[in-house]
């Protein structure tokens, strides 16, 4: 990482710690904010958070690794999470999955070369009556069929 980038990130994290507070109970909110902005929480960011909150870096890493929506590895600009739990599974998740993989040329757990999309599975989205469902960033898409899903993915930037 460039020094300038590091400085900017440090500044940003300092601002967030100021906004949410440096108490432990702010940790998850700060991590969510960084995840949202940078699409991952880098090792440098983790250590900056640890320093400013007076906790150990491994504690930050431990918390990140616990929650599915936080990641330490860079992700694409858009994170697509396809629900794989029972109701969506029964409603035809497999066909959507196959179509999406074929269209993007990547598997789940991977990111497209142009950093546009990361594909992930997720557990129940609470859309069981409208499955198959997927989440793109924080937006939810339901009643998917393979063609629809692919069209939606092709439209996102």
């Amino acid at each position, binding site marked *: 990482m460039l020094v300038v980038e590091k400085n900017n990130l440090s500044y940003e994290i300092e601002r967030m710690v100021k906004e949410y507070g440096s108490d432990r109970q702010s940790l998850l909110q700060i991590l969510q904010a960084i995840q949202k902005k940078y699409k991952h929480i880098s090792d440098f960011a983790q250590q900056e958070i640890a320093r400013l909150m007076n906790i150990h870096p491994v504690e930050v890493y431990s*918390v990140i690794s616990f929650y599915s929506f936080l990641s330490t590895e860079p992700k694409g600009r858009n994170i697509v999470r396809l629900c794989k739990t029972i109701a969506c599974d*029964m409603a035809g998740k497999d066909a959507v999955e196959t179509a999406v993989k074929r269209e993007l040329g990547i598997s789940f757990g991977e990111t497209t070369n142009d950093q546009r999309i990361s594909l992930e599975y997720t557990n129940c989205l609470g859309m069981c009556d409208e499955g198959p469902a997927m989440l793109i960033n924080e937006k939810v898409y339901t009643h998917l069929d393979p063609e629809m899903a692919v069209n939606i993915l092709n439209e996102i930037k």
Partner: protein
Amino acid sequence: METTLKTSKKRTGPVLFSNYQQADGIKKAIELGRENILLELKNSGLKGRGGAGFSTATKWMLSAAANAEKKFIVCNADEGEPGTFKDRVLLLEYPELVFDGMVIAGFTIGAKKGIVYLRGEYEYMLPSLEGFLNKMKEENLLGKNILEKEGFDFDINIRLGSGAYVCGEETALIESLEGYRGEPRNRPPFPVNTGYLGYPTVVNNVETLASIPHIIYKGGEWFKKNGTDKSKGSKLFSVSGDCGKPGVYELQWGTKISELLEIVEAKNCKAVQVGGASGVCLPKSQFNRSLAYEDAATGGSIIIFDESRNMLKILKNFMEFFVEESCGQCTPCRVGNTKLLEGVDNIGKGEYTFSYINNLKELGKTMQAASKCGLGQSSPNSFISILDNFKEEIFYSNRKGIKNVKE
């Protein structure tokens, strides 16, 4: 399509979905005073709607009695149980019920702060919910001296989860709020005494809180006219799977499964999963059972499987869910679920003996008894009930003509 999210409510019911004008409950609460609220609540017989079914009045009384400088009301909106989506409907269509419920709770136990723990998957609701809270602030339904009642201060914050089913367990939720891994705590102490940041905390399910304004405004007597002896009021059921009309239904406690199946237009139904992945799977022969705390208990999830479904595949889907979603701290749940999943795979491959199967079922019982929290205590339910209730299909049929769950 990006969902409009306003389509899931399928039937207007007698209690929760009955008419309610925002703030009516709060006004009545101020009129009644704390003790009468608790009496009204006790009289209503309301039990927690998240699944565990603990008496709400008792929970409130314990924390009302606790002596502390701060107290908290937490709304558990970490709805993650597979097949459950009623909270989504409540939060989107009836936020006034949920938030009025929190305000009344705060008034009753003496808490000044309420926190909604909203699952990360529901982040899209955030703008509308926050807008609603702002409106409440403008109307003095939140903030200082609510409705000009001196000293009645209450505020609500929304905090997001980040994709962890176990955070729906109340102590895991509190750990998560405190910025830790969502690992359930040892109990005792209970949150009503030692909860968020060590202060007395009432954690209630969205639906429980949404029932409060009705009960307070219309009375415990009115509320308990519905339901059965031991299960008062009505319940929201999230119905999904093989049926004509999936969605959220408000039905009386005590409704028979067969009745529900008729209402939702389920055909050729082979099995019903009552209570989500952590619930039990019932065969046709038990469709005459009632949905109630004392019979087929559920937090509201009803998943319907028709004749074409492969029960073993369904079980595999459930067990995979628990293997991933266990917090991983206690042995029975972390390793136990893995062993049950392994068992499902071995059955699928035909590599099993019945003594091995029995051993796994016994292990399931140990998990139910010895796991640290409700996740591990209930995750073997579907394993045991599916293997018991669908023995024929799983062990004796050649499974020809049974469709893969994934087809």
